[in-house]
């Protein structure tokens, strides 16, 4: 199990399109991936779950990954957050 804190760099926050991009990335992996904010944790493979966080610019989220491919998954998730959803 790995936990990592990520920050939202995009000015518009984690809005619908980046949420969809994130879900596409996380769904590729077998690991269970969760995002949490303020104690509430959602499944990072669920678009509705990710959107529920309504994460705004500069807010911090905790990514939790659990499974065989958690390390590779973390790298891709981090790249995504680092890019500021520019992809």
């Amino acid at each position, binding site marked *: 199990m790995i936990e990592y804190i990520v920050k939202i760099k995009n000015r518009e926050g984690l809005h619908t399109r980046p949420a969809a991009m994130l879900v596409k990335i996380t*769904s590729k992996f077998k690991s269970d991936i969760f995002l*949490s904010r*303020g*104690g*509430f*944790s*959602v*499944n990072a*493979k*669920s*678009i*509705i*779950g990710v*959107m*529920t966080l*309504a994460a705004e610019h500069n807010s911090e989220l905790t990514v939790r990954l659990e499974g065989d491919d958690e390390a590779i998954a973390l790298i891709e998730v981090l790249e995504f957050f680092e890019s500021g959803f520019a992809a």
Partner: protein
Amino acid sequence: MLANLQTITQDRITVASVINSPLLRLPLRQVNPAVALERYITDKSLHRPQLALAGYVGLFTYHRVQVFGNTEVNYLNSLAAKKRREAFRTIVQFEIPCIILTNNHKFDPELIQIASDHGIPIFVTPYETTRTMYVLAEFLDTQFAEQTVVHASFVDVYGIGIMFTGKSGIGKSEIALDLVERGHRLVADDVILLTKKRDDVLIGTGTKLVEHFIEVRGLGLIDVRQMFGVRAIRFQKRLEIVVELEQWDPNTQYNRTGLDPENIEVLGVPLAYIKLPILPGKNITVIAEVIALNYLLRLYGYDAAQVFAERLDAEIKRKSAAAAGLSSGERMFPHFHNDFE
């Protein structure tokens, strides 16, 4: 899936947030409005400070809301003015969040002044003590309730709250949609907020942002309320059954008789639990309806598995009593004479 849930609880709320809450159905008027309402309530229980007023403060739960009913008020009134002030001072020296007077009791202005000096707000309600305590305890129970978020679909099926869990992509949302199509009511999909009430009840709701939107793979987001109307949704429902969906695994033992119903604990509340393997040609929606109906039957006292087991026992007993068994000419399947259809 439902183990190690992250829970959220408030450990304190201000007196102001209680008093100003539109959900509190208790008429209250502050007797000393000059006193600020910034003290914290840290306990959902209430306290009647009878013994504390009489002088015993050994186990005085001063951090609770203090309710003054007939006993407390009449006791204070029975004392001489000086004794009365002393008795009241014994309790206000503690960090009491607030005092509530029931039955529209009038309080000695001197005592009100003492409370104000100690920064303790006093409220008065026309409700009698029992009703006050009942309403307030219910409200505080909700305020201090444990909450958690789970990734699942939650549907009211024939009045029974069924929550479907399972890995992402196994088809939870599709089952919810199918159940809605068959006339059942969607509570929420993907993000379910569970709130524990009264130690043994879990209430499931959706989030304000999502409400009754669901995602169907390949289609995208769908608003069930707009599409199917208000009869297809509800905002909250008690959770009674957890159905875990999983790919059929030949090495897993699935329940075959239903004689030993399984339970699962969620936030410490025991719930009926069914592990359901997904197989081609298996209609989970219909099975979900049957799960709800079977649960209802059991609730009303008819346990199909039990009835069947008793039937079998009776038959075995009858046969061993007859000793001769099948040799008596009796057949295993009844044969209807003269029925040639």
